[in-house]
């Protein structure tokens, strides 16, 4: 079984995620990813924040485009800090944001959020979006994925790796309970402080969202 992180503090809290014995890896097209890099075409030397944690594929792809990559294993830190604790505790929320998104205003030219936002409690989600909005420069883009099955109690827990500009490798590591399930309207409301939101509905009931700061 492939564990999501190294030894030491638990990479994934046992109560949050049910791990499969085997990782299932699929390659599929991603319109959202294609749009994200299309928006940055011709540019080099950008600072891209990847919240999926470091992977060889993402490092190779982004650095080969001439960009600087910042890597943060957002979900792992979420489990380390919150675990079974109250997800709405303001002190813990502030501590979490200091650990994960402590950057200068406007530091990033793009953020690969992947599906992490759907695992955040409402209070944490609001604070995280506010922080993300502050650390990306105006006119930059964020790519986020949300599961669209509103009846699901648990959703596939993926790791996202970039295969090329139009394709991603989805590695399903198990199931995880989302904090919230979003539809298009709730997503529009979620990103109301951003300039624009564009949706792509795909297979695996994943909704891809490109958000412009």
């Amino acid at each position, binding site marked *: 079984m*492939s564990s999501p992180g190294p030894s030491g503090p638990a990479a994934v809290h046992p109560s949050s995620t049910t791990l499969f014995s085997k990782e299932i890896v699929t390659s599929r097209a991603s319109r959202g990813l294609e749009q994200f890099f299309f928006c940055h075409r011709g540019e080099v030397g950008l600072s891209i924040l990847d919240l999926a944690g*470091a992977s*060889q594929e993402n490092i190779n792809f982004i*650095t080969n485009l001439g960009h600087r*990559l*910042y*890597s943060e294993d957002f979900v*792992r830190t979420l489990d380390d800090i919150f675990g079974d604790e109250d997800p709405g505790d303001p002190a813990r929320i502030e501590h979490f944001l200091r650990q994960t998104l402590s950057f200068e205003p406007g530091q990033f030219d793009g953020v690969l959020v992947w599906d992490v936002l759907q695992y955040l409690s409402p209070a944490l989600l609001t604070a995280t979006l506010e922080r993300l909005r502050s650390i990306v420069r105006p006119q930059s883009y964020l790519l986020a994925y949300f599961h669209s099955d509103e009846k699901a109690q648990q959703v596939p827990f993926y790791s996202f790796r970039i295969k090329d500009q139009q394709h991603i490798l989805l590695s399903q590591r198990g199931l995880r309970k989302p904090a919230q399930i979003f539809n298009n309207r709730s997503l529009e409301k979620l990103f109301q402080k951003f300039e624009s939101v564009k949706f792509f509905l795909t297979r695996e009931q994943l909704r891809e969202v490109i958000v412009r700061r």
Partner: protein
Amino acid sequence: MSIFTKRSQEEVPPAPRPAAAPPSNPIEPKKEATPLSSMPFKTPEPPESTQRGQASIGKAVKINGQIYSKEDLYVDGDVEGTIELQEHRLTIGPNGKVHSSVKAREVVVLGNIQGNVDASDKLEIRKDARLVGDIKTARIIIEDGAYFKGSIDIVKPEPAKSNMAAQSRPQQAVPAAAASNAQGSAVAAEVKR
């Protein structure tokens, strides 16, 4: 008449042989100037790592300060400060805990680094390793299961200028082949290079 034969001046009496040195008595004990240990003296064999030209810091060792090395270094202990190996390889062992900035030609991490890493050639972060800090390197290899938090700047080394100049000369000479004989001989000389 002398009964003694006049010696020829050319005759040189043989030099008397020196007396043979008396044989030493093997039974006589030697007098020792300094006392010796009762344990048999044995030259310690260097650890395998140093036999290959690599220094080593064991897991029970803690160092607080600056480390400069002109050979490969293996760190399996605690280091706080800076580690610099300009043209050599640094390996952080599975027990290694390094709270310092690191600069080397090549860095292999099996343990824990908290600090910025500048690896001019290559950086490897192995499974179960942990690196928190900013990275500057020409190549990076990160295994599944490794933890990394920070920024990555890929800095490729510049190609050697002399090689580039040598390769460009024949290419530059080709278009001049249709010129006069004088120029042709010059071109031929260049091509030969």
